[in-house]
């Protein structure tokens, strides 16, 4: 636990390049540049079975292969550090405490795909993180790991930090590209996919911070080491961010596929004040809610999918019995309505409409037909929005209606909150 990606975060001066070098840092970069051709690096990553940690779980090696195969140059690498999903804070310790791990991963990835430059698109709110990265990048330039002729090889690579301006949708890769180009943060039409036509219409690979952080370890220890960890289909370490009603919330780096029960009870110390578990959101705000009976599930892409939810970014939100699920849904929907970019009508108006209905229900002014109306709105939104934001927005509504319909009915019919705890302010 915490021995691969997060192993440096508690060290003194962990952001300093000297600390990192002392620990064998930038050796994998040397190894990659001197021993392997770009093609071989891609092969190694592909063999390791590394899948994107941003939420969709696309095989990283495959993505690189597509981009590297495109003859159009220059190619670009984008590091998606726009960690906007509520409950997710897994990239933050890497950025703020161990930036060189990320930078090294980026340089190796850039070498693999033959990129000319990389942009780290960092969330606007991560002011400190952006600062740390800037300093770390300056150090890396000084040491010759970035810039022209890196380590004497014929490989030029530049790294820039670009701060976002606070839009959740810019975590979506094409919206991120638009935003990086200085345009309004709205998703682009796919196809063409960014691997072929990305930033400034050039082939572009976009990887999550956690994904790129893994790369140096794969090069260092070999693909077989990586593959030996966790389930066969998605091996490797994974950082789970646990929040909510647990005794020890925080980031836990574990092997992919650790069970949810272990996560909550073994690592996070169980539910606060010995209360009963009511619901868990397993992968960030946009994933469907799970009930206590699903708690045995292994936290990897396939297993979570099998019980009707998604692993997403691995942000686990735990809720105990004091929580009104209607209130939670309303709170989540408000976030999505606020973050909807306004490009496509189902997302723009649907989220807004759902919030207004939920507002009514929470204020005990709901009507019986509201549940059906919400289901119909969700049906009209599902699969019809431009980008995944709209699909994500309906997940909380659909899953809470599915699992906690009785709470809605109590709000609507009995005009009261189903939770009888005195501090049930979550409801409003």
């Amino acid at each position, binding site marked *: 636990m915490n021995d691969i990606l997060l192993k440096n975060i508690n060290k003194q001066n962990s952001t300093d390049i000297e600390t990192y070098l002392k620990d064998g840092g930038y050796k994998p970069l040397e190894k990659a540049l001197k021993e392997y051709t770009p093609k071989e690096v891609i092969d190694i990553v592909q063999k390791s079975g590394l899948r994107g940690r941003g939420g969709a779980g696309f095989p990283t090696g495959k993505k690189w292969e597509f981009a590297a195969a495109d003859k159009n140059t220059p190619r670009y690498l984008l590091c998606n550090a726009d960690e906007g999903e509520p409950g997710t804070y897994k990239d933050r310790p890497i950025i703020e405490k161990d930036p060189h791990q990320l930078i090294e991963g980026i340089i190796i990835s850039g070498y693999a795909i033959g990129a000319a430059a990389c942009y780290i698109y960092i969330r606007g709110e991560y002011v400190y993180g952006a600062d740390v990265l800037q300093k770390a990048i300056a150090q890396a330039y000084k040491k010759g790991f970035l810039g022209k002729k890196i380590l004497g090889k014929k490989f030029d690579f530049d790294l820039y930090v670009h701060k976002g301006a606070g*839009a959740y949708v810019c975590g979506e890769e094409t919206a991120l590209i638009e935003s990086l180009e200085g345009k*309004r943060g709205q998703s682009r*039409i796919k196809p063409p996919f960014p691997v072929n036509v990305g930033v400034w219409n050039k082939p572009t690979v976009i990887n999550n911070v956690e994904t790129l952080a893994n790369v140096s370890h794969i090069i260092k220890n070999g693909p077989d080491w990586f593959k030996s960890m966790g389930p066969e289909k998605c091996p490797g370490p994974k950082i789970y961010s646990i929040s909510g009603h647990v005794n020890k919330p925080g980031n836990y780096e574990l092997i992919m596929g650790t069970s949810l029960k272990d996560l909550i009870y073994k690592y996070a110390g169980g539910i606060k004040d010995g209360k009963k578990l009511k619901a868990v959101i397993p992968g960030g705000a946009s994933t469907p809610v799970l009930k206590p009976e699903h708690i045995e599930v292994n936290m990897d892409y396939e297993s979570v999918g099998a019980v009707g939810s998604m692993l997403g970014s691995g942000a686990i939100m735990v809720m105990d019995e004091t929580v009104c699920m209607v209130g939670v849904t309303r709170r989540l929907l408000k976030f999505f*309505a*606020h*973050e*909807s*970019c*306004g*490009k*496509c*009508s*189902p997302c*723009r*108006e*649907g*989220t*807004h*409409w759902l919030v*207004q*209905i939920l507002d*009514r229900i929470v204020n005990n002014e709901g009507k019986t037909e509201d549940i059906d*109306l919400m289901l*119909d709105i969700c*049906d*009209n939104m599902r*699969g*019809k*929005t*431009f980008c995944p934001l709209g699909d994500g927005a309906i997940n909380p509504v659909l899953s809470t209606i599915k699992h906690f319909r009785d709470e809605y009915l109590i709000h609507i019919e009995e005009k009261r909150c189903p939770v009888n705890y005195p501090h049930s302010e979550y409801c409003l």
Partner: protein
Amino acid sequence: MVKLTINNKIVEAPDGMLLTEAAKMAGIEIPTLCYHPELQPYGGCRLCLVRIEKMPKLQTACTTRVCDNMVVTTESPEIAKARKGMLEFVLTYHPLDCPICDKGGECELQNLVFKFGSGFRRYAEDIEEYTIDTNDPLIDRELDRCVRCLRCVRVCDEVQGVTNLTAYNRGSHTEIGPFMGGSIFDCEYCGSCVAICPVGALTSKLFKYKARPWQTKRTDTICTYCGCGCQFALETRDGDVLRVVTDYEKGVNEGSLCTRGRFGYSFVNNKKRLTAPLIKTNTKLEPTSWDEATDIIADRFKKIIENNGPDAIAGIITGHCTNEDIYLFQKFMRLAIGTNNIDSAARFGYVNAMSAIKQVIGSKRFEASLDDVANADVILSISTNITEVNPIAGLKVRRAAKRGAVLIVADVQDTDIAKFASQNLIIKSGSERWFIHGLVKAVIEKGFYDKKIYKDYKKFIDNLENIVKGLSFKEIEEKTGISEKDIIEAAKAYSKAKKGVIIFGQGITHQQDGYKSSLNLLDLCIITGNIDSKGTAILPLCDENNEYGALEMGAAPEFLSGFLNAGAAKDREIISKIWDKKIPAKKGLTMPEIFNGILKGKIKALYIIGENPAGTFPQKSEFYEALQKLDFLVCQDLFPTATCELADVVLPASSFAEKDGTFTNMEGRAQKIEAAINPVGDSRPDWQIFSALSEKMGYPMDYDNADAILKEIAQVIEGCNSKGEGSAIENYVKTSVKELRAIYERKEEKAPAKFPFKLMLGPVLFHSGKLSGYSEGPVRILPEGRLKINPNDADRLGIIEGDKALLKNANGEVKVKVEITDRMPEGLLFYPEHFMYPAVRNLCKIDIDKDTKANYFKSAFVAVERHVPEH
């Protein structure tokens, strides 16, 4: 071509075509809202969802490109529900105010809901308040109606290249507005956003609440403002022109218009229009009948012919008339009167360019096309200010530049098009010729010329080399302010072009030695091999919409119809045969010569159509005095002008909206116009007036309609083409060194110490010609002229924005309002020529070109000081 199946129907479509277009071709309707054929796919409204086999979700047809073996379903309960759902989302906040919405009846959303929507509204929550802004002079924004398709924002960016509109805020709070905020658009006011809005969110103030689309009649016609010749349709009701609409598939403009075209139509129904013939009795103009007016004119003309001969009568026609009008006018003058004393507005400068082109290319019809401009790989734009003078031509340049063409802009001020230029060269006013000669020098001395051309025309290039040798780059830099490096770079880019286009404007043609400069530019074309091959062009911009037509129809003393040489007996013979009457052989007088003739007492009567010399010539000039000395002045116009006040007989003419005919734009493309309304008042189309007069003059020219005249014109032009001739270029390159030296002569104008500023008059985007001032739209945007001045100059003179400045020179003094802009270089002032008052034109003096007798009166040297208002 690929084969795909849509609704069990096999459809063939070009590879890469959008599914919506392929379905449309096959006659299958897919509803769309944010999609527009002119714009890039967007995929926002999600109305065009269709089922494509092997795809997990419904796909938007407006973003999907067709491919082989695609199987598409566009009609199914699932899709119908999706469409209904999407429309419901759009309608959640959309107010149901169709009865008062201006778009009612042509609203795309209305039609879609009618066809695919549900008749019931489930959205019962509160509706937010959106911006409703009516402060802009022309465009109203009612954003509660907006469906966020962003078509306006995209057309502003992708088609117009203006990027003035933007979407701000996010999600359901998204609103559309000017990029710089505020409620005034303050843009080019091309009106594309209004035209493309599918709902009533952006509406034109001028058309607002005037009529429903089903009440109006649509007539396709051609714009009358500039030489671009844009096609649009006039919507009229009961003799009122209500608005201008365009179709993106039609005309050179492809649906785009400039502000003058889109909003400058209301002069047609202006209350000030002349509605009856007027005759002067006791120094006052009194209305009379057509019969009496024409009788008087015929009598007087006959008397003058009897006493002083036919050459005592002269005529001047505007370039705003149709080809038919102009053709008949020159025929009237040449046959019914018997004189060659005819001239047109082209004499103000356009004739320079056309004479030069005729000299080099010969009498074959000159054709350059705006498509060539749009497809060019290098464009050299010299003194054009193209986005303001000829906005649609400017749009083509913009498109080419956006596509990746190299654009080199040389102008005396920083122009709008320069923002797309790879080289923006600001040359000193009056040094254009040095710049052009610099280009020629660079091409020759650096060996950029076409190798094949060098082989063919070695002598010519050697001659040129001899001439430009005397001019050093140092001198050029001194005069123009452009360094050797820049000139060589520009010359290199142009000579390397496969599709090189030169565009030159008023800064060349309407200046001293305009004819020679045009020839110099043609030389540049010849030596770089950009003269005859496909895709290359040299395009002089013309200011009035039918100046080309005026010359082609023969409204010039040196040209007969079809650009034939009036001085050559052989050419006269060709036309005489068709007309069945001999054309007078005596050389006619050009416009300045006519006015000199009046002063000398040779010319007794003048017939002016649509021109207003008393209003446009400087008052201190001899030409202005000449007008008072005339025995008999006939004025034929739309509006009572200053010249009309001096006239003995005033005849009311019809505007372009009231007559049939053709206009020839600057590409040489003749386009048909059609009468949209009946003539206003008692006015008549010009050709009918000439026809009536000719009958009274004893040489009846009777035509049933404008088409009959067009047939005769076609016959004449055909007759001209039958005239065989050798290659004109071959002749031209034999020009002797001595003659060439004359063509490459440079004259320096020096500002007198007392009057250090150079003042230029010229057209602006919102106004041109004599008509825009009578139209509500342009007047609302720009009600008065402002003197443009460089901030440093203003600082030095202690002038701040909004102050008045006093312009002074030997000819008088004028007070004008000031606009401070860093687009003007130091020492140069600009004032829109369009505004009659204050009469800045009076400061200018008239210059006459030695070669073509073109007259220029658009610049002057002045002194400027701050005007202190008296208390």
